[in-house]
């Protein structure tokens, strides 16, 4: 064993020290011959005879050297190097082919590696927390409904924390980020930040350690503790210039001096895990006693004890929650039926199907690339038929020829992989910066070690796939056949033609599957864009505003009215209003029922609540179906009023006119004064929930968004609006003007992301298929030049020749489309869950894809056909 190792090392040394060892051997052999000649001379031979006999006894010098090399070094590696050198030489001679092959491969591999990186980041890689596989997400109401449904009160959180036996630790954060808006003042322009309130053990449970300073102390998390805040690394770098002395300093948050106690590591991006598409950079302690009366306000997660499974924890909570509810009946709203899932599944589970579809799409691309390359190599190999025939005539074994061809494809694949990695790196770097795409963990996408491994795997697989078929084909050929086949002018090489036809057909079929999938997803996306949202995003924009009413509801009306009055006066503003939450942005629910009606248990008793000023409905473009909008005469002392949507009217007053009826919310009567058309409040793709709108003069809003409808593009008015707001309130933060369209876009961004990527891949597939068809037809035309010449000499018209070429193209394409359509039916069914308002067998999509593919095939066949029809019989016949 040790000897073998020693020998292996020595062989490796010898491999690299080839020249020196050869010199040494030469010297040794010449001294050997000198000894032999000397001895022969002593035996009385003539000098010539002495030399001759010495050489005879020595045997072949070249063979001895060869054996010496084989014995001392790594012959397989030698052969490989030889093949490599040969390959590089031939590829250099054929630069055009090499460039096209590498480019095609690079596109295929780039797409594959980029998508792998995304899949790896979102789906495969564990979450960036300590022991993430034991982290569990808890969703109340079995995860159904808006944020208020799936969250818990402080009381529930504390009771569960105390009584459960499945979890090592349970923690929580406050996901209604709007209720923790913090105005940072005293450092340049005032800025508004969305802070996340986290429980004391939030960071420790996830295993997050600060890079600077410390985590929150218990005192800071209790009522009356010193206000403290932690910064994300991003905020620290961009807002505080990465100044380490910031730790322990005080900043003004909502006019309260607050100590910055620590900076979180750059690897911790709260938004990318818990609120994809949002930046959340400021963290404050959730002081439980302060938020005890906020209703359902905490999102809960826990760390399982070692050995406890998710199912066991689920079984426990199913029993525990009703028990706790019985014990706390007076304080709890209901029994909090909880659905548990691994945190990882909560974060990325919904994307699994989309990602797998995306992965399959790039897999198809790679197959198409391989088929294309196979075709190219086959054409090249046919052209090199004589070379290979010569080599096997000279004694190269079949394995040796295949090895040579595989080396060639590996070199091409290697080149493609390198360029592809570059492409993938570009794509991932681009994606990582797309903060507005609501996909979890997207900001951490990068080409990492796993992606490199994947690249290697893909490259080798591809090389074998596209290199092996031509290799076997050629090396298996009968020498005579090859030499004959190499002749000119005949539509010979039927065997090759058949292989190539099969390759083209499969390429078209693969492209067809890809296009149908992309077509269905694109159609779904268009349907999503067409959804009537219940408001008009065009030419409307929102900006966060702050105002100081001292917490007194009776002062609020006058302040808001004056602010809106000034904004309204800006030229170009058509309508303005203020609301606390924008649709598709954030939501919360309050209890809401028709007065006097008896509800069965399990019936919905809550509604999404929006607190707005007069003018808001008009500004955002919601349509009042009946009744009236709020007015400034609806004050804290006048009758309490509410506007509901159609869904609320249908649910609570079925078949009746709700206007003028009395509802109950927060234990008080409230009169319905209007009904608006349904609004998609939480998702574009799911329907409308039950909504109620309350006047800001009668209920307490969570934050404030000024919504304006403009005659000009909203951006043109941004500075004028900002100027007006600043003049009115110097503390107005430097906030972004957000178009309402951007909020809608954000909500549809995951679908857009997937649809666009798949569409790009399908386009790539179509292009590759077209190239493949063109290559094959054009090749067969050039091989049949002489035959075409004969036909034309015998009287075939140019049109007839053209028709013949085009019809053979179409035959291939149609066969491919037919096969592809069959496969597509199955493939479409597997992505049915990803479609919106689109049938998997959508005839329009299928028909148009078939048409597009045929048209592209026609075009790809037309160019060679035209060339064929221009063949001059005289020239063609003279070619031999």
């Amino acid at each position, binding site marked *: 064993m040790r000897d073998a190792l020693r020998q292996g090392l*020595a062989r490796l040394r010898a491999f690299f020290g080839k020249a020196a060892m050869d010199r040494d051997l030469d010297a040794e052999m010449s*001294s*050997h011959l000198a000894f032999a000649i000397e001895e022969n001379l002593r035996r009385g031979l003539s000098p010539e005879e002495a030399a001759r006999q010495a050489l005879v006894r020595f045997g072949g010098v070249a063979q001895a050297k060869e054996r010496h090399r084989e014995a001392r070094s790594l012959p397989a590696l030698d052969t490989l190097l030889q093949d490599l050198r040969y390959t590089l030489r031939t590829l250099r001679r054929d630069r055009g082919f090499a460039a096209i092959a590498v480019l095609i491969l690079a596109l295929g591999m780039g797409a594959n590696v980029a998508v792998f990186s995304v899949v790896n980041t979102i789906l495969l890689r564990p979450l960036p927390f300590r022991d993430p596989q034991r982290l569990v997400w808890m969703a109340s109401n079995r995860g159904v409904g808006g944020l208020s449904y799936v969250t818990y009160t402080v009381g529930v959180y504390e009771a569960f924390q105390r009584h459960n036996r499945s979890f090592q630790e349970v923690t929580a954060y406050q996901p209604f980020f709007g209720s923790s808006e913090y105005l940072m003042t005293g450092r340049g322009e005032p800025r508004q930040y969305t802070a996340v309130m986290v429980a004391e053990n939030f960071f420790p449970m996830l295993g997050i350690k600060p890079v600077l300073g410390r985590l929150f102390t218990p005192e800071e998390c209790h009522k009356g503790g010193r206000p403290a805040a932690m910064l994300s690394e991003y905020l620290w770098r961009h807002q505080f210039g990465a100044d380490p002395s910031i730790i322990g300093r005080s900043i003004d948050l909502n006019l309260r001096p607050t100590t910055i106690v620590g900076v979180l590591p750059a690897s911790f991006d709260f938004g990318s895990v818990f609120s994809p598409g949002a930046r959340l950079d400021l963290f404050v302690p959730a002081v439980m006693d302060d938020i005890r009366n906020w209703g359902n306000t905490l999102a809960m997660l826990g760390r399982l004890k070692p050995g406890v499974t998710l199912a066991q924890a689920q079984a426990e909570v199913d029993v525990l929650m009703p028990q706790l509810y019985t014990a706390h009946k007076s304080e709890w709203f209901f029994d909090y039926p909880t659905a548990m899932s691994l945190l990882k599944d909560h974060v990325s589970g919904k994307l699994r199907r989309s990602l797998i579809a995306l992965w399959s799409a790039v897999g198809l691309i790679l197959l198409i690339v391989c088929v294309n390359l196979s075709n190219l190599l086959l054409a090249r190999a046919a052209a090199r038929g004589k070379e290979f025939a010569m080599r096997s005539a000279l004694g190269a074994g079949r394995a040796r020829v295949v090895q040579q061809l595989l080396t060639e494809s590996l070199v091409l694949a290697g080149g493609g992989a390198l360029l592809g990695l570059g492409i993938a790196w570009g794509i991932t770097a681009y994606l990582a910066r797309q903060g507005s795409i609501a996909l979890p963990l997207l900001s951490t996408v990068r080409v990492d070690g796993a992606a490199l491994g994947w690249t290697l795997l893909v490259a080798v697989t591809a090389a074998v796939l596209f290199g092996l078929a031509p290799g076997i084909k050629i090396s298996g050929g009968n020498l005579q056949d090859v030499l004959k086949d190499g002749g000119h002018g005949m539509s010979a090489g039927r065997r090759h033609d058949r292989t190539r036809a099969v390759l083209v057909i499969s390429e078209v079929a693969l492209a067809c599957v890809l296009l149908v999938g992309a077509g269905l997803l694109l159609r779904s996306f268009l349907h999503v864009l067409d959804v009537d949202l219940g408001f008009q995003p065009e030419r409307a924009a929102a900006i966060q505003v702050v105002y100081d009413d001292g917490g007194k509801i009776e002062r609020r009306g006058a302040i808001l009215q004056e602010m809106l009055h000034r904004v309204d006066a800006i030229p170009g503003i058509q309508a303005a209003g203020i609301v606390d939450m924008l649709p598709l942005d954030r939501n919360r629910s309050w209890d809401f029922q028709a007065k006097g009606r008896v509800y069965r248990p399990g019936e919905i008793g809550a509604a999404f609540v929006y607190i707005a000023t007069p003018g808001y409905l008009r500004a955002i473009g919601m349509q009042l179906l009946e009744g009236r909008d709020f007015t400034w005469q609806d004050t804290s002392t006048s009758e309490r009023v509410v506007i509901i949507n159609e869904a609320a009217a249908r649910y609570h007053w079925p078949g009746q006119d709700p206007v003028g009826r009395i509802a109950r919310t927060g234990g008080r009567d409230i009169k319905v004064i209007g009904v608006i058309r349904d609004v998609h409040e939480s998702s574009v793709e799911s329907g409308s929930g039950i909504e109620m709108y309350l006047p800001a003069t009668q209920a307490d809003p969570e934050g404030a968004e000024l919504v304006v409808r403009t005659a000009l593009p909203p951006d043109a008015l941004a500075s004028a609006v900002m100027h007006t707001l600043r003049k009115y309130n110097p503390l107005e933060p430097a906030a972004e003007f957000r178009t309402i369209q951007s909020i809608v876009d954000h909500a549809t961004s995951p679908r857009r992301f997937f649809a666009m990527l798949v569409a790009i891949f399908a386009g790539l597939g179509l292009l590759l298929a077209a190239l493949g068809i063109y290559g094959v037809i054009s090749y067969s035309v050039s091989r049949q030049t002489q035959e075409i010449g004969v036909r034309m000499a015998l009287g075939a018209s140019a049109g007839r020749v053209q028709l013949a070429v085009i019809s053979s193209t179409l035959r291939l394409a149609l066969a491919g489309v037919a096969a592809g359509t069959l496969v597509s039916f199955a493939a479409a069914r597997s992505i049915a869950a990803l479609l919106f308002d689109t049938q998997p067998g959508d005839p329009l999509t299928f028909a148009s894809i078939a048409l597009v593919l045929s048209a592209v095939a026609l075009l790809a066949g037309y160019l060679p056909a035209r060339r064929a029809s221009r063949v001059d019989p005289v020239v063609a016949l003279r070619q031999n």
Partner: protein
Amino acid sequence: MPDKKLDLLQGTLDVMVLQTLAAMGALHGYGIARRIEQASGDAVLLNQGTIYASLVRLQQRGWISAEWGTSDNNRKAKFYTITKRGRKQLANDTAYWQRLSGVMGRLFAMQDEGGGQ
């Protein structure tokens, strides 16, 4: 790849080289080749060049060592000597060959007995 017969031959030559070096001390390649030829009564007709593949292999395994030196008649030559580990290997090989030749001998004797049929 060399086939089976060649493998056996290589192995045989390796043992011959080791034995020659063990018996004769330091020798150069030509000397080893001649010794083997002489010892076999010129029954082994060696392509002398093949000995160098054997020598480099043995050297890489650490069973012999080599050094350039000067011969009696003042000619530069590479001299090989057997190492300690080479001697151990030779002892193993000797035992193997003796056992093998014993077995072969008995096998051939058996054939003789049956030869009367």
